[in-house]
């Protein structure tokens, strides 16, 4: 049963939230409200009476009692200690009554004869000081009655808290409950030692020291008066929240559901950019665009963060990064769901099923208040917001320091979130550890978050490890170092028993393991090192599901030998020498990128029975600057069903910065499409998006986004930042240019439900074909038609409006044209709207002479006069002066001659003059 006050309750770590406790807390607030009144108005018995009746009314309301009775199984061994409560002569009356009420209520709640509440009185001297200054009280959960009673005798806890920081404001800042630990006690001891020198502080020190010792390991909550006042605002009436309502609000997968006959918004993406209205400060704008079947819907624009955003692996949450921590968003209204305080957080990782969230601040930074934050890792429960485990700087220091490629995610998760693991060292001084010191794997239980058997699994020279995606197996490979040969080991969990060990040789310097998505095969890529040079690469395959796990090594690929100097490449060598390896999901094929970085080649291999890989093809792929390739594979059985397998992506080391004025590096890439048709690969076509840096596949495989982004925080923007959406066929669907465009991400979807047996799958497919195929087809066609008819109607309207305009214009132009011909004085030049073609043809005489004629003669010819050569001679004599051509105008005479040839001599086609419009 949840009540409304749950959401307002900040202190989840102190007590288990249940109904009884809530009631009790609320009751205590009443007590303090009354107390405050007494401080102001002095003692008044009437008030106390009123108070009592009020409280009893609140508690006696039948709904609450019902709820209490429902919770019979609640842990009743709850002992509470109340400190900071004045119980001197002035308060005797009130104190007594308050105590009565407390006992009364406690008996009702816990049905315990003995009072579970203990009071710690304040001395008379201190009373004077704090007579009017009650600011709060401490509440302690005790394990048993004896422990609680010991407080009554000795301690003054609230007083200690007040004294600890020297100022009560510190308490106000923290607000949360204080979990007292050894370290803190040490800190406080140091503070108190300074105080110890002053004699009058001796008592204080003694008290507080005792309190520390007693409080060690127990939960203490402090209530400040401000907070109490806030609690007072909670209404007394109990409101039930209906179950359905609750579910609807928090339905995180609303975007996958079809609702009211409309299709769900399954293809979503988030784009992070700066709005135009925010000129001064860089702020985030949240933007989701959905499109399905070519329709585009903008759903929301929301300010969220000034940093980057991220989706959770199933797509149920959107994560936004802030200085103070992390915020989760979700649901149809994009509500704030959970908040996790972790200062300067910059990395985040999820378990595959979203049961755990891991955050990390990898760089040491200091707060505005001067507080230092060492790199730490926290594990959270995203549903409740609880912090489950902390990895201190000591534990993760060496890995952070080395930061070899792919250092994050630091933890890898096994199937169904059962286990997770991390590479570690056994060296004592962990901060100064080096690569070669890494010699063990910490394997954790996914539920309890503790190491299996509370010990690390020793794995000397471990280089890479991976969990099987289906079984409880962990594979890790080591590299050859000194006299140790490289090995691949598969261990079963939780027994940590080695199932298979395979040696890789003494020259294997770089090794990686890749699981096939069904867990059938394990591929091991080996870089053979000679001295400091990488000589060749080879790939080994373990068939895990077969007996004894047979091992097969490919013929060493000398062809693809790299000539890099190992010393120059250093750590990058890990990434670049073995360029890329990827399995095709759920199949026995894999593809690799190899050869030179500038001209990478792609090969595809298929595993034939038993384990011998056979090369399918080998071909060259385009390259500009950033290599991004898509591979489309056609499934053999399904027609018209394209699926993407993997995007292979490489990027130059230099990150490009886009700005209006600085020189930007030339970046761009081509989209190449490969098709698999009867084992022959060919290019579809090539398209390019200039300036693009990022490429993202839609999880459905239907769309691709290429984006030209800029780093977060740049203050200028290029004119060409934006993104383009392509269909999987390679057509450009649409393009958006956004200034100050930082980030774009597709929303991932939950994984498909896998049926265990193949018979079930067949049944399922048959069901789909029989029952739902036609329904879906109909819906598709309806949507398509609606969409088309919309545009057609718009176009028809445009067409009609233009035609009506044209008719109006025609009337006007007729009038105008008449006037114009009058004005102009000659009507020979056609003024008709319609086209008129006049063709003048004259037969060629036997004795033809080529003559140069001028325009005047030409016009006369066109007018239909019959002109002989003699006439031309006469006219030329008359106009000899004007026909004098300048030296720079030499060619013109010839051109005119040619012009006349076609007209006068009639060289076949004759001269055609087209007239249109007025001119």
């Amino acid at each position, binding site marked *: 049963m949840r009540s409304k006050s749950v959401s307002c309750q900040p202190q989840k770590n102190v007590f288990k939230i249940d109904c009884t406790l809530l009631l009790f807390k609320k009751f205590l607030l009443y007590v303090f409200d009354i107390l405050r009144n007494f401080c102001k108005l002095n003692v008044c018995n009437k008030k106390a009476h009123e108070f009592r009746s009020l409280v009893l009314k609140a508690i006696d309301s039948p709904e609450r009692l019902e709820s209490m009775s429902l919770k019979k199984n609640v842990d009743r061994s709850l002992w509470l200690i109340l400190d900071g409560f004045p119980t001197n002569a002035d308060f005797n009356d009130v104190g007594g009554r308050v105590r009565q009420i407390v006992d009364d209520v406690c008996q009702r709640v816990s049905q315990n004869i003995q009072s579970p509440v203990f009071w710690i009185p304040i001395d008379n001297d201190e009373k004077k000081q704090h007579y009017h200054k009650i600011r709060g009280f401490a509440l302690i959960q005790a394990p048993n009655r004896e422990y609680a009673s010991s407080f009554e005798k000795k301690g003054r806890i609230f007083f200690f808290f007040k004294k600890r920081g020297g100022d009560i404001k510190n308490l106000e800042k923290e607000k949360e409950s204080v979990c007292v630990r050894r370290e803190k006690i040490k800190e406080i001891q140091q503070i108190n030692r300074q105080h110890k020198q002053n004699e009058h502080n001796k008592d204080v020190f003694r008290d507080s020291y005792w309190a520390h010792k007693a409080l060690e390991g127990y939960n203490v909550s402090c209530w400040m008066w401000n907070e109490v006042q806030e609690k007072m605002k909670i209404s007394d009436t109990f409101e039930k929240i209906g179950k359905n309502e609750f579910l609807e609000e928090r339905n995180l997968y609303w975007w996958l559901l079809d609702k009211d006959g409309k299709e769900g918004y399954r293809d979503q993406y988030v784009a992070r950019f700066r709005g*135009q209205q925010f*000129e001064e400060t860089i702020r985030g704008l949240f933007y989701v665009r959905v499109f399905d079947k070519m329709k585009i819907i903008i759903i929301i624009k929301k300010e969220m963060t000034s940093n980057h955003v991220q989706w959770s692996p199933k797509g149920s949450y959107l994560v936004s990064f802030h200085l103070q921590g992390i915020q989760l968003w979700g649901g149809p209204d994009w509500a704030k769901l959970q908040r996790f305080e972790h200062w300067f957080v910059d990395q985040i990782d999820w378990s595959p099923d979203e049961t755990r969230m891991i955050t990390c601040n990898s760089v040491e930074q200091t707060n505005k208040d001067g507080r230092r934050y060492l790199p730490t890792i926290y594990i959270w429960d995203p549903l409740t917001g609880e912090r489950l485990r902390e990895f201190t700087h000591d534990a993760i220091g060496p890995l952070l320091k080395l930061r070899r490629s792919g250092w994050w995610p630091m933890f890898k998760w096994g199937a169904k979130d059962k286990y997770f693991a991390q590479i570690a060292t056994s060296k004592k001084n962990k901060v100064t550890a080096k690569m070669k010191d890494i010699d063990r794997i910490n394997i954790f239980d996914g539920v309890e978050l503790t190491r299996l058997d509370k010990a690390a699994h020793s794995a000397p020279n471990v280089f890479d490890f991976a969990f099987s995606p289906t079984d409880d197996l962990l594979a890790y490979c080591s590299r050859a170092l000194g006299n140790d040969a490289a090995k691949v080991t598969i261990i079963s969990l939780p027994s940590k028993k080695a199932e298979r060990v395979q040696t890789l040789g003494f020259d294997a310097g770089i090794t990686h393991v890749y699981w096939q998505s069904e867990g059938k095969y394990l591929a091991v890529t080996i870089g053979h090192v000679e001295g400091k040079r990488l000589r060749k690469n080879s790939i080994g395959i373990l068939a895990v599901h077969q007996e004894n796990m047979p091992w097969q090594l490919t013929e060493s690929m000398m062809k693809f030998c790299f000539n890099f100097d190992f010393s120059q490449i250093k750590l990058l060598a890990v990434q670049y020498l073995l360029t890329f390896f990827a399995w095709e999901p759920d199949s026995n094929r894999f593809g690799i990128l190899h050869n030179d970085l500038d001209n990478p080649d792609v090969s595809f291999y298929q595993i034939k029975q038993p384990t011998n890989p056979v090369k399918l093809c080998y071909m060259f792929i385009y390259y500009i600057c950033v290599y991004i390739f898509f591979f489309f594979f056609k499934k053999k059985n399904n027609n018209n069903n394209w699926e993407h397998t993997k995007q292979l992506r490489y990027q130059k080391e230099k990150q490009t910065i886009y700005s*209006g004025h600085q020189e*930007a590096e030339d970046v*761009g890439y081509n989209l190449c499409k490969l098709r698999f048709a009867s084992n022959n690969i060919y290019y579809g076509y090539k398209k390019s998006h*200039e*300036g693009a840096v990022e490429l993202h596949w839609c999880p459905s495989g239907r769309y691709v986004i290429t984006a030209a982004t800029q780093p977060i925080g740049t203050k200028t*923007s*290029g*004119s*060409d930042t934006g993104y383009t959406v392509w269909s999987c*066929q390679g*057509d*450009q669907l649409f*393009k958006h*240019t956004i200034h100050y465009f930082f980030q774009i991400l597709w929303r991932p979807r939950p994984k498909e439900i896998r049926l265990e047996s193949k018979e079930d799958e067949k049944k399922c497919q048959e069901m789909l074909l029989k029952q739902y195929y036609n329904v879906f087809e109909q819906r598709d*066609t309806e949507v*398509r*038609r609606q*969409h*088309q*008819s919309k*545009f*057609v109607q718009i*176009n*028809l309207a*445009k*067409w009609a409006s*233009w035609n009506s*305009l*044209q008719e109006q*214009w025609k009337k*006007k*132009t007729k009038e*105008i044209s008449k*006037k*114009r011909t009058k*004005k*102009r*004085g000659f009507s020979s030049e056609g003024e008709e*709207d319609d*086209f008129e073609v006049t063709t003048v043809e004259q037969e060629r005489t036997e004795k033809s002479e080529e003559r140069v004629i*001028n*325009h005047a003669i030409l016009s006369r010819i066109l007018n239909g006069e019959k002109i002989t050569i003699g006439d031309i001679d006469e006219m030329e004599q008359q106009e000899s002066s*004007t*026909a004098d*051509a*300048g030296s*720079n*105008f030499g*060619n*013109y005479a010839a*051109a005119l001659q*040619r012009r006349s040839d076609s007209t006068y001599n009639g060289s076949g086609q004759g001269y055609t003059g*087209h*007239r*249109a*419009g*007025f*001119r």
Partner: protein
Amino acid sequence: MFSKTLVKNTIFIVSVIQHKSAKKKKHKTFQGEIFGHNKPISQLKLNRDGDLLFVSSLGAGGATEPLLTVWDPLSGEWLGSFEGHSGAVTDLDVDLKSQYLISSSNDSTVKIWDVNNGKALYTFNFTAQCRTVSWSSDMRFFVTATRPFGGKGAQIHIGENPILEGADKVDEGDSKETERDAKSMKATIDFNENTGVQSTRVLWSPLDEQVFTCCTDGTIRVFDVTKQKEIKSVVFDPKFSEKSKLADEISPSLTDMKYVNNHSAVIISSRNKEAKVFDIEKWDVIRTYSTDRPLNTVAVHPTANVVALGGGQQAQQAALSDREGLYECLFHHLIFEERIGLIPCVEKEVFSPLNAMSFSPDGNIFALGYEQGQVCVYQMDDSFQNTVQQIEKRFITEEEEEEL
């Protein structure tokens, strides 16, 4: 929505124009390196018969640079050049009979040429640089617009055609160039605002009563010739704000103005990446064509419902970013406003923005002038109009797309 069909069409049209013409070798690009233009081309015009192509360029005015030339559009041969301007030639206009050519220049003159022999007949001297020029329909007047100079704002000058005044004199006397002052103009009209606004193009109204100009500040101004006053100013894009100006290339400046559909409407292109069709009388926006590049020029196909738009990034910025500057010539549908095709730049030759375009009156010949000085002439295939009509049908009728 029509992305799929559009892609197909683009390929189709281009292939028709380029491939076929390339086979026939009818389309030629000729560069000015040998004896033509080396400098930005400012204006291009095909004459009424479609057999002469007049080209003006913004050359620096050196002795070797011909600034005003005539070409044969079909063969690509240089026919002749009109020499006499000492500054960049900004605009030109030819009469219907292809007899007289008028040109405006940055040497603050307007000249009238005899097309037949390439001689300058008249020169009009002004105090400021002349930006544009245009013949009236009855050839009695011409109009030119000057830049603001020496404290004076931009002006519109209307002059009488001296050839019609004394046509006999010219024929009889020696063909010497006669010079005239700005005072001999029939009318000079000041702009209402003296804010350094320049007018980029000038057009006469159909009955020669009004003069339209499009200006660099994004307004279209209408002048009454008889009253000698500015009547109206129309804002091209009222939503354009200075804040959205992120790069220098985006400005409200209007660049080109041409008649649509027999002098009944006007199409205007802008650096603000848009072109619009305006009604002449009420100045309502009838159609808008939005593109992804700043536009320099516009042309309307005389018979088919096709609008050609051209422009591109400024060459400097394109060089900095080292990528394509969007210099293709775009074809939009006149009525549906959607893009239906494009002419790509000639490979390895053209790397500069389009500055001028002209259709021949029958629409078969299409000339493009580029910033670097190239002029490309395309001959439309016979099936061009048919394909446009097919596209129109697709826009109007509902058809289910065949899945590939």
